[in-house]
């Protein structure tokens, strides 16, 4: 790849939008320029500082080693643990996830994804109520009314509005932004709210009450709604209910504003009920704004492999799922895991500090291209190729559409999938050696 090459229509592996119109110029084995991507995607594809070598901690210091030494030490940690946690998986390919599940079954681990600290409540709510969903293409081509509830795509999914929602021009929505009604419900006036026709400011932690009031108004039971609910006047709520009912095709996108606040999965459950009821008056769909580019994909892989979409305990010899018990944060908070593998995620930064402290007390294996606070606490560090830039694979967009990530540049690093195969083979080899010794 020494000559300049233009890679057209590559898939961006940053957020759940998985924009598939990215042009990447490669020369001298390096990405030189990225076109069409947002600031977030460009930053990732252009690349930055990497972990240069696998490392094992010796006398408190991370010391460079070979990949095989790192695989063997990782395998040893997993084999010695009674209940290891294998956490992350949102920023790598489905193929890597599949190998990770094999490894989890082999060592009897709890396999959890970053969904548990973002849209885990959505996953639970959807399991309870079902998802009146659609593809982003349907929203682009048909939606005349769009609600963004507790999400801020202008900063978290910057090209969402242009490619799929507010500002997109579709087959039956040729006017784009002018032909759509955009409503934002949030506790603060975000950048997304500034692009809306109507911003509804609610009191933090009152999403459940506001959704309930809307359900009553949609069902024609407005007489029972008080004059103010969650900081919103009844008149504003009645206007909103009327707007939603009048939609030809409505879409609700929701984010961590409602999964992370009081009510959590019950907020989602209630929002799904609202959308189900709106379908008695119009066509309405709802979709979680998934953050990491393949957090949806690992949920799919885990569901078809084990029957459950996250927080799966393989330590019992069969898959067991009970979030609140088997989720990564609960396991760590209870001190119920004695080793951890963190892959394609940064648990130490993204967990509550009081939870992350438990990781400092157990051996941690990190698989990641980049140094981050999890590196600081890790006993084994294994650098990998960046999926979607240096390794190919499959990822699922936030609407469940599977897309193929391309390899754009060569890398001296193994892919996550290759690393997991290396650790799995080492586990099997060490187990065999031990069995032979005991025989």
């Amino acid at each position: 790849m020494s000559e300049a090459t233009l890679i057209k229509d590559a898939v961006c592996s940053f957020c759940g939008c998985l924009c598939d119109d990215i042009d990447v110029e490669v020369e001298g084995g390096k990405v030189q320029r990225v076109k069409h991507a947002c600031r977030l995607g460009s930053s990732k594809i252009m690349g930055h500082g990497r972990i240069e070598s696998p490392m094992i901690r010796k006398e408190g210091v991370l010391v460079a080693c070979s990949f095989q030494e790192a695989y063997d030490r990782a395998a040893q940690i997993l084999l010695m643990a009674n209940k290891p946690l294998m956490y992350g998986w949102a920023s790598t390919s489905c193929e890597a996830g599949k190998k990770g599940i094999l490894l989890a079954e082999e060592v009897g681990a709890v396999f959890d994804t970053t969904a548990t600290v973002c849209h885990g409540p959505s996953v639970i709510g959807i399991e309870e109520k079902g998802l009146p969903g659609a593809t982003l293409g349907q929203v682009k081509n048909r939606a005349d009314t769009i609600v963004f509830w507790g999400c801020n795509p202008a900063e978290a999914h910057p090209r969402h509005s242009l490619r799929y929602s507010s500002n997109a021009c579709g087959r039956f929505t040729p006017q784009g932004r002018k032909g759509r009604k955009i409503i934002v419900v949030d506790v603060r006036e975000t950048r997304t709210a500034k692009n809306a026709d109507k911003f509804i400011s609610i009191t933090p932690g009152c999403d459940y009450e506001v959704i309930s009031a809307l359900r009553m108004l949609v069902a024609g039971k407005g007489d029972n709604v008080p004059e103010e609910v969650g900081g919103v006047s009844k008149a504003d709520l009645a206007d909103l209910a009327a707007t939603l009912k009048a939609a030809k095709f409505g879409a609700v996108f929701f984010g961590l504003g409602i999964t992370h606040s009081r009510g959590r999965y019950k907020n989602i459950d209630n929002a799904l009920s609202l959308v189900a009821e709106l379908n008695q008056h119009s066509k309405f769909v709802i979709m979680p704004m998934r953050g990491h580019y393949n957090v949806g994909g690992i949920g799919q892989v885990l569901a078809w492999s084990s029957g459950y979409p996250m927080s799966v305990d393989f330590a019992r010899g069969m898959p067991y799922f009970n979030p609140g018990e088997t989720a990564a944060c609960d396991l760590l908070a209870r001190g119920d895991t004695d080793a951890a593998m963190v892959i394609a995620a940064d648990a130490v930064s993204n967990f509550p500090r009081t939870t992350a402290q438990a990781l400092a007390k157990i051996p941690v294996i990190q698989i990641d291209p980049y140094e981050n606070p999890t590196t600081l606490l890790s006993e084994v560090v294994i650098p990998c190729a960046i999926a979607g830039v240096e390794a190919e694979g499959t990822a699922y967009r936030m609407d469940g559409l599977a897309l193929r990530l391309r390899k754009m540049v060569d890398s001296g690093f193994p892919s996550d999938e290759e690393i997991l195969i290396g650790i799995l083979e080492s586990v099997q080899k060490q187990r065999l050696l031990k069995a032979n010794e005991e025989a």
Partner: protein
Amino acid sequence: MLATMISGRTLAQGAGCESKMSPDFFKAVALCHLSERDFKSLGLSEGKNVLLKNEFGQVVLTAKMDAGLPESIVFIPMGPWANVLVGKETGGCGTPHFKGLEVDVAATNSPVLNICELFSDMGA
């Protein structure tokens, strides 16, 4: 001042989230956004720091005025600084209560800890 703390994504936080050890990430994330009225009532000016405390921990952050915020709500870009103020409880669904936490906010002359300092007491 008592306030409700929420956290969330920002463009700068997202652009830096895979280079967390960099000075750019520190500048983008170790921030506390306050409404104009709260900012003034605490006697702050740009670049001054605030101390946030609750039952789970305390953290010093650089104060930033944010016209989009209502009074008594503070916003911190999601990341390790915000998570100092989050507890272990998951409400039986595996997800901690990241948003809507009550915090006490005060002006301070204490410095903001960088990412290595933030984790130094965890053996990092």
